[in-house]
């Protein structure tokens, strides 16, 4: 029993070391890389932005619109009782921009791209492609991790902004068509309590979420063992871990905001 516990502790320490090494190298290739000749794969990064960002637009739009509508309906149901129906717009816009937009987008992207990162790297590792890279004197982190992290840091905030906008429009659709609020007053109410720092706050969060999702995906990919089955296990595990850590980070940020404000 104690033996097993000890092994667990040692294992997790080894994992932490590996994770730290990955973060360290990624930071190197992200910060130092771009200033060296051929040090950063811009083309690979752009491809990542397209894959993780552009291709996620339809699904993010759909879900963000639905979230906006649900939020509007749900808050209307409660606010009507206290006679504050006009506050629906405010509630939707503020909670979407500060909280739900970044969070929902990050969860969708963790499911779409975090898993793809893990699967890609894990299957490359299984096929000895990562080994081949190393023997060719090419750094796997530079080629496989840095472009993904950078790509997601660019793509996720953009997706988040779009999700914010779409969710507010979704709320507006409910407000205008279902609750009889005019477009003009809904629009004005939306902006009453919404301030620029709220938007920035959400974007900063999404940058951190991007870091979490991409690093978790890549880390899980590199730690694959076994064949195709291992790839599947790592893919699943990358989504679960990334979503968990994103939500945990969100709790932390919200708490921090609350305390500071």
């Amino acid at each position, binding site marked *: 029993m104690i033996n097993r516990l000890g092994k667990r502790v040692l294992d997790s320490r080894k994992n932490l070391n590996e994770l730290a090494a990955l973060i360290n190298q990624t930071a190197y290739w992200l910060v130092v890389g771009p200033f060296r000749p051929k040090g950063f794969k811009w083309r690979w990064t752009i491809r990542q932005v397209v894959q993780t960002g552009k291709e996620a637009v339809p699904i993010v739009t759909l879900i963000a619109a639905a979230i906006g509508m649900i939020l509007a309906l749900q808050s209307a149901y409660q606010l009507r009782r206290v006679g504050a129906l006009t506050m629906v717009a405010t509630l939707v816009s503020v909670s979407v921009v500060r909280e739900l937009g970044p969070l929902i987008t990050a969860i969708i992207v963790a499911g779409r791209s975090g898993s793809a990162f893990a699967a890609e790297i894990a299957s490359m590792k299984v*096929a*000895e*492609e990562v*080994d081949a*890279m*190393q023997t*060719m*004197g090419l750094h796997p982190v530079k080629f496989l991790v840095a472009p993904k992290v950078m790509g997601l840091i660019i793509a996720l905030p953009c997706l988040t902004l779009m999700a914010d906008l779409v969710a507010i429009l979704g709320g507006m659709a409910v407000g205008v068509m279902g609750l009889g609020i005019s477009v003009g007053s809904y629009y004005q109410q939306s902006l009453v309590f919404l301030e620029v720092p709220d938007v920035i706050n959400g974007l900063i969060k999404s940058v951190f979420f991007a870091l979490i999702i991409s690093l978790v995906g890549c880390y899980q990919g590199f730690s694959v063992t076994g064949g195709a089955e291992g790839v599947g296990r790592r893919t699943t595990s990358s989504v679960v871990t990334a979503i968990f850590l994103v939500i945990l980070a969100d709790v932390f940020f919200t708490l921090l905001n609350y305390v500071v404000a």
Partner: protein
Amino acid sequence: MTVEYPAPIIIETRGLTARYGNRVILDNLSLGIPKGLITVILGGSGSGKTTLLRHLVGLNKPTGGKVIIMGQSLWDLSRAEELKVRRKMGVLFQGGALFNSMTVAENVGLALREHTKLDDKVINIVTNMKLEQVGLAGFGDLMPEQLSGGMKKRAGLARALAMDPEILFVDEPSAGLDPITAAGLDELLINLKQTFKMTIVVVTHELPSLFLIADWVYMIDKGRILYTGTMENMKKTEDPKVRQFLDRRPDRAEYDPEEHLRSLMAGV
């Protein structure tokens, strides 16, 4: 025990030891790879031959001992110095290990594009030459998934040769190939040795391949060297384990009925 090598040594292991947890994979191996010849590392599954190869090419860090390549140990070098040594080494992995997101030509030209200041046109010419050398001229624009197993291996070889290495490592060249394709690959290796005086290290368990290409042989069993020497001497050896391997005789454990019964009763 001193070994008479047929040529100067280009790679050397000194007391190389590898462990996974408590399991010893390589046990204090000291061996040399002669320059300009084909050395075959022979061994059954689980003998440690693949682990040995991974140490020779610098993918695994030794638990103990050293691997000296052209006078240097990869693990003691700075990144820039390590790169200089790595540029002189090419590795062909078992399945070719081509990067699936790139075309065959991009695969072959990748190292040139990253490590040299050559013009794209020059890189294209070199890439075409290498593909021609392995018999894949005109296949550069295909994606790896469009190639057969044998072609993937040839493309992997072209990629390993892209930087004109002095040493070529090959992991199981015949694995998964039909006899004709396998023989073709063997012939390619012999050509490389004869034309470019390349040092070639091949890990295999395939006997036909061994007889065709080997100049110098190491046989590995349970992490130790069982046999060292030339191909000719190996055929004459009396060592029972080496003979068993060469004659393809299966393992027969001594049958002890009492021991068998005890093992069945274990835990009852």
